[in-house]
């Protein structure tokens, strides 16, 4: 019997695939290499020499710490806001039937489909009209618009897979709404929430466009990097920071992937 699974790919296809992957990932490696170059004014290839001194330089730059701190705080608060709102919204949409349910579902997802620049302009003019000065909270508000979506999507998928009779069973056994949420709902959607939260954190952490419109004079880490690129001195510092950003965003996404991959077993074992 013929099986496509065992058929060997032709050489041309293999080369094309390798080329595609190289195109995607080599530039990232380049960023890492430049973090160790001795040349500080321009990106010269090959690097004239290698040094680890930029790690120390970066460590001692207060502006880096300031931007990093702001980014972490914004991402953390946006994620918390998104987790609360996203879960509530997902519960409402998947557990009950009401007029306009599909519309609400669409409206919640829309911000991630909308170009960030439009969200940004819209928020900026809204803040202007309402006379709200730019602050930490305006950035959080901007980020929450798309963070809610990823949490919502994860939670809705898990809610749909969780049998609704579990909630009825819990009530039947004497648990009120809050106890049911704590002992039955949360353990069943927990991993989905965690995954959604990690994605939300990663999204918020490297967001540039919406932030540009809602940050005012403050610089989150990506904004700081953007500004730093036009400065002539100590360029490798940006690359060191870039390396950190890659790690900080990549690890949560990887964790989210593994958490949701095994999700079927957690939620579907009751049937």
């Amino acid at each position, binding site marked *: 019997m013929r099986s496509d699974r065992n058929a060997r790919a032709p050489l041309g296809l293999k080369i094309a695939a390798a080329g595609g992957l190289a195109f995607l990932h080599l530039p990232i490696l380049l960023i890492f290499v430049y973090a160790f170059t001795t040349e500080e004014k321009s990106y010269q290839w090959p690097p004239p020499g290698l040094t680890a001194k930029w790690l120390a330089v970066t460590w001692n730059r207060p502006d880096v710490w300031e931007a990093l701190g702001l980014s972490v705080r914004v991402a953390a608060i946006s994620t918390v806001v998104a987790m609360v709102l996203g879960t509530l919204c997902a519960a409402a949409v998947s557990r009950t039937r009401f007029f306009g349910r599909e519309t609400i579902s669409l409206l919640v997802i829309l911000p991630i489909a909308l170009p960030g620049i439009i969200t940004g302009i819209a928020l900026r003019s809204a803040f202007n009209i309402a006379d709200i000065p730019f602050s930490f909270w305006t950035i959080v508000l901007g980020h929450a618009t798309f963070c809610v979506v990823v949490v919502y999507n994860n939670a809705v998928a898990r809610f749909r897979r969780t*049998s609704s*009779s*579990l909630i*009825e*069973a*819990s*009530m*039947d*056994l*004497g*648990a*009120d709404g809050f*106890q049911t949420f704590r*002992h*039955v709902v949360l*353990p*069943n959607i927990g991993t989905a929430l965690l995954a959604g939260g990690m994605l939300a954190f990663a999204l918020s952490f490297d967001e540039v466009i919406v932030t540009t419109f809602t940050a005012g004079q403050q610089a989150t880490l990506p904004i700081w990097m953007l500004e730093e690129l036009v400065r002539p001195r100590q360029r490798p510092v940006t690359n060191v920071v870039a390396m950190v950003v890659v790690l900080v965003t990549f690890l949560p996404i990887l964790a989210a992937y593994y958490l949701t991959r095994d999700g079927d*077993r*957690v*939620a*579907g*074992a*009751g*049937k």
Partner: protein
Amino acid sequence: MQTAVAFSKVSRHFGQVRAVDGVDLEIGEGEFFAMLGPSGSGKTTCLRLIAGFEQPTFGHIEIFGETAEGVPPYRRNVNTVFQDYALFPHLSVADNVAYGPMIRGVPRAARMKAAEEALELVQLPGYGARQPGQLSGGQRQRVALARALVNKPKVLLLDEPLGALDLKLREQMQEELKTLQRSLGITFVFVTHDQGEALSMADRVAVFNHGRIMQVGAPEEIYRAPRSRFVADFVGSSNILPPEAVERFAGRKAWASLRPESIRLAATGGRAATVLGHSYLGAATRLTVDMDGQRLTVLLPAGADVPANGTRIEIEWKASDLHVMEDDT
């Protein structure tokens, strides 16, 4: 006998659909009560009304003399065994069973002991450490039963609990449920679409159709004296004779039911009929015969001579076996 559950003129409408339509019902304490009917007949909605998952649109429900309307499921001394068992997938079997006591604040050691006792009651001693996913369908059903019984409910509701089991296991569970109910003395309310199950297990059966109760009575009463064509046909298929035919036999112009096993082959003096077909059922043989244009099903006990297709035979029945029905529905 105290009344465990009482419905008076209870209706539950979902939009235009009258899932339950003016039901009056009294279930006695310690009774094994079956709600029997085809799917969509309102029997499960009635069960959910007792559990508190549904509220009546009209009418009044009392559970042990207390008004049930507006009382949420978690404040009712009633527990349910769900059709899909609804075991919590993230908890071990013991934690599943101990869920009710845990919510009531029973300390861990005491509730684990109660859980183990409940598991023994359903013949699953020592299964506490397993996960629900590791159990077979029959075992999950027993865990669901233990999880409900550990709370010592006044009424236990069972929603088609045997529906997902295979025949052999189902028959075994029927016996066990019956024994369990007798020994615990708890009121069982059991929903099923399987008439054999309802007849063999219940003290009394309510037959549902289109959101109404067609008839309530002991299994024998329902079987021997169905009040309407629907009940006669749904509870153990019966020969339903039209008024014209019944007028000839019984002198009354009304629909009548004649159970297949009440009809015998007669040597002489019976009514003439022609054999159309037969099928072998093991314990009996089912004949289809034609009697003056009226098709009848006849059940012959094993060992009887089975006439060949096309044979002219004579059949008879006791006049008292022809049950003339009051309703014409």
